[in-house]
């Protein structure tokens, strides 16, 4: 793993790399932070027709650069949006099948893409009580998921302390058997690599390395044995254009510190 400091922060790398995964014409349900930023970035780059949904109750949002909301529940999420509706009804769009991609961050993830944002340690006697699911569980249960998060050993564990938002649960067909016939983890984007999930085992698989990172670097920062795709590729670094648009969105580094 290289030591020279790249001309962008880890958060900026996450935002740019995940923005590239969003396609024009898709409908994405985006959480606050990197997901909101990356979706807005994609909209200004190669996916002008990307439909962004926010949990607070927004369809077809266009966030104004430099006016990022503190959550997805404030008026900044709705300025010049196509529609404002109730939180319950926008979440129901996930259940009705209107959402192509769910996009959120995570505190802790395991090899099957299960996310924990509720408890570190024993849920009945947690060492840390986290803020909880919000709409995360609904998004992860009902759509194809992209997760963007910093890559640290304590965050990438073999088994999460608690399943707040379901990935593939115990792998194989366990997600479907639990009553979740749709969606599931699609990609996990970190500052070290981009991961997919094995069709059969549903285990997390390294698809691409971020600039200046090697497989050992990924394994050293991962709490389970990293599966590597046969056609492992190299993710291109953020371009000047991508970074310029991104920084214009978040000049105060609200999300990209």
């Amino acid at each position, binding site marked *: 793993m290289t030591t020279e400091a790249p001309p962008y922060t880890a958060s900026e790398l996450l935002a740019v790399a995940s923005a590239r995964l969003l396609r024009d014409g898709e409908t994405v349900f985006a959480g606050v932070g990197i997901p909101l930023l990356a979706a807005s970035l994609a909209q200004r780059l190669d996916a002008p027709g990307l439909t962004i949904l926010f949990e*607070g109750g927004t369809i077809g949002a266009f966030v104004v650069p430099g006016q990022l909301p503190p*959550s997805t529940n*404030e008026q900044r999420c*709705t300025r010049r949006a196509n529609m404002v509706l109730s939180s319950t009804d926008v979440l129901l769009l996930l259940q009705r099948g209107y959402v192509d991609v769910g996009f959120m961050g995570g505190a802790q993830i395991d090899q099957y893409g299960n996310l924990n944002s509720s408890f570190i340690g024993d849920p009945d006697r947690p060492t840390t009580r986290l803020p909880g699911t919000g*709409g995360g569980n*609904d998004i992860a*249960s009902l759509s194809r998921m992209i997760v963007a998060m910093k890559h640290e050993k304590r965050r990438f564990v073999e088994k999460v302390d608690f399943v707040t938002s379901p990935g593939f649960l115990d792998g194989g067909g366990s997600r479907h058997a*639990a009553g979740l016939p749709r969606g599931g983890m699609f990609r996990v984007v970190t500052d070290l690599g981009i991961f997919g999930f094995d069709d059969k085992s549903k285990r997390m698989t390294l698809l691409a390395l971020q600039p200046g990172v090697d497989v050992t670097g990924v394994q050293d920062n991962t709490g389970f044995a990293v599966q590597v795709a046969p056609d492992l590729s190299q993710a291109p670094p953020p371009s000047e254009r991508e970074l310029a648009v991104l920084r214009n969105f978040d000049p105060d580094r609200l999300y990209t510190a």
Partner: protein
Amino acid sequence: MTLSYEELCRRTAARDRSLREKVMSLEEAAALVPDGASLGIGGSTLSRTPMALVWALIRARKRDLVCARGISSSEGELLFAAGASRHLITSWFSQGIVWGVSRIMRAYTESGRARFEEWSHMAMGMRFRAGAMGVPFLPMRSMMGSGLAPRLPDIREIECPFTGDKLLLVPALNPDVALIHVQRCDAYGNAQLDGLQFMDLDLAMAANRVILSTERIVSNDQIRRMPDQTKIPFIAVDAVVEAPYGAAPHECYGVYEPLFRHLDGYAALLRKDPEKGAAEYLERYFYEPKSWTEYLERIGLEELLDAARRGRSIYDD
């Protein structure tokens, strides 16, 4: 909070639902909420939080309130810190992502002094909606397979009698009292909300009593010129309180944005020592002021004007 259908309807029938004036002070409204009541709190995160009503309840030294809200922020931290509530039912609880994990939430829940009962955001919506519809449950397709469902009371997984699908049934939530802040309503309680509605319409119809705070009271004639803009009907409302900046330091759509500097100061105060910081904040802003206006004065006019400028800008070209 689950009532039998007969009891739910008996309570509704017992309310005076006639077209009558119901304007009162924050203190009079707070007196309508008994200790131990279950509360539904309107708005979400930093939006249209009924802060003036929460302020009045804390000043009235309420105890054992069981509070439910879609997503909870600093109002929840203060309800815990003031000892007004030891049980919050919500999907997410911290001041806001930009300020990190709530240290007050952690201090109270990790020590077992208070309970943070976690449901998914959509489940909270389904529970209020079931309550509003007068049915004991609604079916949904999330929360299954996760760690959330097994920790929750009163939840059922069934096989759909029509399709055989696995479904989760979540129980109706009919709070004793709903607190909702709106941009405008008339003296009878006909409320017209702008912008984000969150779960407030279902919450209002689910609750057994509704207390509205409003930026301003308008005439019934004005309401009736645009009846399709009325989102909460007078028949569901028991009290109306006029409270300008009634959601401050949170936002009220189209009127003012969050008071960020004040919120940063609050966060900094709690970061040092959550419990001492919260106590200090409560003293300064909740207990010492003689009135809601004095609370606003202590926040500072400059902040209020800046937030209003940003708030109204949502309608600018």
